[in-house]
C-alpha cells in the first residue's frame, strides 16, 4: 500500500484479498483440467493435436508416458497440469497444428488490448462525465434523456451496435472501413499505415465503447445522486460554497468511489463485448481467435483464452480492492 505503514489490519486485508484471488485462479485452472478430461476421446490423441491427426499406437504410448496419463488423475495429473500452466505451457492447438497455445494468444493480444483500452477510455470519459452531470441535475430534462438512452444502450448487445455502425458508416456512407485491421494493398509509408490502422479502429472502438457508456452513466448518476443528499453537502452549502466548488471539492471525489470499483470489476463484461465485436469486424485479436477456436472445436486454445480472461479479471479485482483502500480511508482503518 502506498499510503501509511502496514498496520496489522491492512496486511490482513491484503492477505485475504490475495488468498481469494489465488483461489479463483485455482478454480479456473481446475475447471480447465476437468473439462479437458471430460471431452470424449483419448487425452493422448487430443494432446497430439486432436482426432484429425493420424498417429500410430507407439506415438500415443510415448505421449501417454510423457504427459503422465498412465498415472492417477488426482493428485498426480492435476499437479502436473497446474505446474505446466504456471510455467506458461498451455499445450498445443488443434487447429494451428503443433503451435503453442501461449504463442497464439500472445500474438493476438496487442490487437485486443488496443481495442479494449481505447474503448474503455472513451466510455469512461464520456460515460462518467455525462452520468455525474445527470446526477448533479437529477430530475431535469438532461437527466431523463441520458438515463433513458443509457438503459437502452445497456440492454443492447455490443455486436449488434457494431453491425448497425457498419451498415451506416461503412456500407451506406462509405466513411470508414468495416472490416479488418489494414486496407489490403495500402500505401507503405509508416504514417499512412498508422492512419489506416486508426481508421480501421474507429468503428470497433465505438461499438465497444457505446456498449459500456450506458452502464457508466447509470452508475455515475446513482453515485452522484447519493452524494448530493449527504449531510456534508448541506454543510458545504451552509459554508457558502458555490455549486461548482461543492461539485469539485466534495461531490466529485466521493462519487468516484463506486465508479472506480465498477470500472475495475467490469473487465469481464468489457472483454465479452469485445469478443463479439471482434467477430463482426474480423479484428485479429483474442475475439477473432475465440471464434476460430469455437468453430474448429480447438479446446486447448479455448481453455487458454479462458485462463487469460480469468487471470485478467482476477487482476482487475485485485486492482479494485487496492484502489478502494487508497480512495476510501475508512477501508484502511
Amino acid at each position, binding site marked *: 500500500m502506498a499510503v501509511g505503514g502496514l498496520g496489522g489490519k491492512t496486511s490482513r486485508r491484503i492477505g485475504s484479498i490475495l488468498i*481469494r484471488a489465488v*483461489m*479463483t485462479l485455482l*478454480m*479456473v485452472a481446475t*475447471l*480447465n483440467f476437468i*473439462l479437458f478430461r*471430460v*471431452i*470424449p476421446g483419448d487425452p493422448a490423441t487430443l494432446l497430439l493435436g486432436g482426432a484429425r491427426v493420424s498417429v500410430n499406437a507407439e506415438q500415443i504410448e510415448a505421449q501417454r508416458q510423457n504427459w503422465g496419463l498412465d498415472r492417477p488423475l488426482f493428485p498426480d495429473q492435476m499437479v502436473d497440469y497446474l505446474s505446466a500452466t504456471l510455467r506458461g505451457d498451455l499445450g498445443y492447438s488443434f487447429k494451428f497444428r503443433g503451435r503453442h497455445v501461449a504463442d497464439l494468444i500472445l500474438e493476438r493480444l496487442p490487437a485486443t488490448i488496443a481495442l479494449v483500452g481505447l474503448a474503455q477510455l472513451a466510455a469512461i470519459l464520456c460515460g462518467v462525465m455525462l452520468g455525474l452531470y445527470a446526477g448533479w441535475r437529477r430530475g431535469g430534462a438532461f437527466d431523463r434523456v441520458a438515463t433513458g438512452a443509457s*438503459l*437502452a444502450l*445497456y*440492454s*443492447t*448487445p455490443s*455486436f*449488434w451496435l457494431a*453491425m*448497425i455502425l*457498419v*451498415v451506416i458508416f*461503412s*456500407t*451506406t456512407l462509405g466513411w470508414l472501413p*468495416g*472490416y479488418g485491421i489494414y486496407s489490403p494493398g495500402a500505401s507503405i509509408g509508416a504514417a499512412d499505415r498508422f492512419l489506416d490502422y486508426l481508421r480501421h479502429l474507429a468503428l470497433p472502438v465505438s461499438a465497444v465503447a457505446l456498449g459500456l457508456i450506458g*452502464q457508466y452513466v*447509470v*452508475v455515475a448518476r*446513482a*453515485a452522484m*445522486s*447519493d452524494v448530493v443528499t449527504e449531510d456534508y453537502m448541506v454543510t458545504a452549502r451552509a459554508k457558502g460554497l458555490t455549486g461548482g466548488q461543492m461539485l469539485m471539492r466534495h461531490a466529485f471525489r466521493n462519487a468516484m468511489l*463506486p465508479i472506480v470499483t465498477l470500472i475495475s470489476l467490469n473487465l*469481464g*463484461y468489457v*472483454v*465479452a463485448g469485445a*469478443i*463479439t465485436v471482434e*467477430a*463482426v469486424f474480423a479484428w485479429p485479436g483474442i475475439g477473432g481467435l*475465440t*471464434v476460430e477456436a*469455437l*468453430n474448429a*472445436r480447438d*479446446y486447448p486454445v*479455448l*481453455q487458454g*483464452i*479462458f485462463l487469460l*480472461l*480469468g487471470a485478467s*479479471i*482476477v487482476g482487475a*479485482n485485485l486492482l479494485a480492492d487496492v484502489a478502494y483502500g487508497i480512495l476510501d480511508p475508512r477501508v484502511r482503518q
Partner: protein
Amino acid sequence: MSDRIVQYSPSGRAGAIKGFLSKFLGYGGAQLGLLCLVFFIVLAAVPNILVGPLETAGTATGDFLAPPSGQHLLGTDEVGRDVLNMVVHGARISLTIALLATVISLILGTTIGMTAGYYGGRVDVWLMRLTDFFFVMPSFVLALVITPVVLEVMGRGREILGFRPSLFVILVVIGMTSWAFVARVVRSQTLSLKERTFIDRARVAGSSNFSIMVRHILPNLVPQIAANGALVVAGAIYVETSLSFLGLGDPLQPSWGTLLSLAQRAGAASAGAWWYLGAPGLCALTVSLSFVLIGNALDDTFNPRRRVIP
C-alpha cells in the same frame, strides 16, 4: 414490509397486493416494460398462427436478400426466407431460453443464499467462496468454455424437452453460471430476517430448520427475488444472444442471436441488408430493456431507497 405481512388475514393480503400493484403500475417504466413484454409473449405463444410455420431453405418464398416489401414486411434473407417469419419464431426460442435459464438461476441462487445465511459458520464460508467465484467470472466467459465441451460429450441429434441439444445446454449453462448475484442478495436478506422474532417463535413452536426456511423466510424473500429475477432475465438474453452469435446456437431452432449470426455469415452488414440484422437485434434490445425497466420498477416499489447498481 414484514409489518404488513404480520397481519395475516386474507383481506389484508388482498389489500397488500392491491397496494403493491397500484404503486408498481404507477411507474412509467413498468407500464412500458409490461406492454412490450405482453406483445412478445403473444408472438412467442402462437408464432404458427401469426406467420405460419418456420420457413426453411426448401420452403423459402422470396428472392435472395430482398428489401422490405408488401409481401415480405421485413424483407428476406440470403436464401429467400421471410425475415418476419424467422424473427417471430425466434421470439419463442429466445424468450424460452432466457426464462428457463432464469428459473434455474433463481432456484440455485435462492437455495444457496438462504442456506448460507440461515446456517452461517462454516457452511456460509464455503458457499460464499463458491458464490464469489461465480460472481467474479461472468456467465458469458464461463459458458463460452463449458458449452462446447458439454455439447461434444452429449452429441448433437436427439431433442431434450423439445429443445435441440445445443439450446438445452446453453440454457442450463447460463442458469448454472448466473446465480451469484441473487445468492448474495438473498443471503444478506436472510441474515437480517433470521434475527426477527417470528423466526424465534416458529422455532419455539417446534418447526424444523427446513420448514422455517421454506415457510417463514422464503415468502419474505419474494420481493428481492422478483426484482433481481427480472434483471437475471435481461442478463440471460444478453448471454444467449452473444453465445448464439458466436455460432453456439442451432440453425434448426434459430433464436435472435442465431439469426444475427446467420446475417453476419451472409455478410448482411456489408451488403447493406439492414432489414435482415435490424429486426432480431431490435427485438433482443426491447425485451432486455423491458425486463430492466420492470426490475427497476419492482425494486423502487419494494425499496424506498434507490438502488446503486442498475
